């Protein structure tokens, strides 16, 4: 009834940050699952991987809620499309984490050579770092708006974005290295192991890929 209460619509950033928190929890759980995988603790890994799957569902639900609430009739500090595409990318980070979890679940670990295992863990940790940085980036974006797009806060945001891009570059390198390794060891590995390793690696590097896409969208939000 009171116009003033309706004039100021709810900020999309609070739910966006909430979604990001769930995505963060998803990748953190995946990280723990990878550690368990490295130790060969299959039971623990299984439990954590299933948890990743559950968290991804939670993220999906929040995503749907945000989409429904973002009416095209809102006048926002950032473009609506940017918010929607960012949300999509942020959600893809959780999807990618779920993909890795799925691959972890299909096969008992233990037959993967130690050096490959180490390389995968390294990739995983780095890739998940990119996903964690995305959370920082969206929190910082809220501050950029809060400050009325002050140069100082924009600068901080760019630093985070650069960091994400740096991490993604590194993963690309690791990914190539791992692929070469797998083919070098082709004779020692069963086709199943090779297929398994390559897919775990691919889905892991996908996490940082989507993180980078999300970061790119934040850059566009600021540059309107």
């Amino acid at each position, binding site marked *: 009834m009171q116009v003033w209460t309706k004039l*100021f619509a709810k900020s999309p950033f609070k739910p966006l940050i909430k979604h990001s928190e769930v995505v963060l929890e998803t990748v953190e759980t995946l990280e723990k699952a990878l550690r368990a995988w490295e130790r060969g603790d299959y039971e623990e890994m299984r439990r954590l991987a299933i948890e990743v799957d559950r968290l991804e569902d939670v993220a999906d639900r929040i995503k749907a809620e945000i989409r429904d609430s973002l009416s095209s009739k809102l006048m926002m500090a950032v473009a609506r499309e940017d918010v929607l595409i960012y949300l999509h990318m942020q959600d893809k980070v959780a999807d990618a984490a779920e993909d890795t979890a799925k691959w972890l679940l299909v096969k008992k670990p233990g037959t993967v050579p130690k050096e490959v295992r180490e390389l995968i863990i390294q990739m995983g940790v780095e890739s998940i770092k990119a996903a964690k940085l995305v959370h920082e980036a969206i929190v910082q974006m809220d501050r950029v708006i809060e*400050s*009325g797009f002050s140069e100082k806060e924009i600068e901080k945001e760019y630093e985070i974005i650069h960091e994400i891009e740096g991490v993604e570059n590194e993963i690309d390198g690791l990914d190539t290295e791992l692929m070469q390794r797998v083919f070098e060891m082709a004779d020692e590995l069963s086709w199943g192991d090779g297929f398994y390793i390559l897919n775990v690696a691919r889905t892991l590097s996908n996490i940082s890929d989507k993180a980078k896409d999300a970061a790119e969208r934040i850059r566009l939000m600021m540059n309107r």
Partner: protein
Amino acid sequence: MDPWLLVTIILGFAMAWAIGANDAANSMSTAVGAGAITPKQAVIIAGILEFTGAYFFGKSVTETIRKGILDPTKITDPNVLVYGSIAALLAATLWLLIATKFGMPVSTTHSIIGGIAGYGIVYAGTAIVNWGKMGQVVLSWILSPVIGGIMAYLIFKALTKSIFERKNPVRSARLWSPFWIGLAFVVIGTMFYIKVLHGKNLGTGVLMYGIPAGVAVFLITYLLIRLRFPISDPFIGVETIFRKAQVVTSGYVALAHGANDVANAIGPVAAVYAVATMGLTGMKVPVPRWILALGGLGIAVGVATYGYKVMETVGKKITELTNTRGFTIDFSAATVVLAASWLGLPVSTTHVVVGAVMGIGLARGVKAINRDIVRDIVISWFITVPVAGLISAAIFKILMMVG
């Protein structure tokens, strides 16, 4: 006392009440919404400062017909002025009550103008309306929000430049918030010279009253704003400072609103009073102090009785408005309204406030504004004049037949 005069006084008071319930409450909503003041405090601030603004800064001379919207030489029968004023007041009050019911922030100025035009047309046809003036009113639908918007846009940009872009935003906020409050008092001091002391020279007013008042207030505020809590986040620190500053600017809005809008309620009363005591008079009539006090009191009562409810809802429901934004809206709106009322431009406080909100939105300061609601608000502005006119015309016809 002339019974019609008594009726007009009662209606004038009712109109003032409606202004307090709708307009004053809407003007202070941003301060309540940003959590700077509670609805109770808002009622006290509005009660005292709306009265002060109306009584001291209200026009001591008013046009017989608000904003000269009708040609007074065409009204030869004093009774027409009496019945017309009553019809206009009643129509405007009714329209404001309807608008308040639906929560629409409509202009009180335009309600009364519509009411006056309505009875004028019934009495002497469309030729009696000063269409040039009416054009100005229509122009103000566009001008008020635009000027309010530009002002808010610029102030918001200045605020972010001077505070958020600094190394230590909290320290900058401690210096700059007293500056803006001081600036408000430069305006208030100058208005005091012009309105209360009836000074003529703007330069003298600014130099002798405005600037000293501003500097004094700046120093006092600077000393008062001390933060004694560990600041983990500079943004929260800045907002805390502006929450305090907004208490002052919300009072500034109440003062400006009282000064600008009281004439809507008491103008017709003054006109009828002039007819009752002196017979039919010319374009302008003096406004006795007691009539100004009546208007101020009516607004204060309106805020306390109904506006309180409006502000309570707003306080609970707006959660997205921060204090730096609320401060910007308050400061720009009050300054524009005071300057316009001094220049004699027909701006509406409500329109300026809505314009200021949009201005901050365009400066990318508000995370989300509902465009639908903005559209509804603008529509309510456009229908105010015709609707108030129609109601007034009907009442006037009845009065002429009965009287």
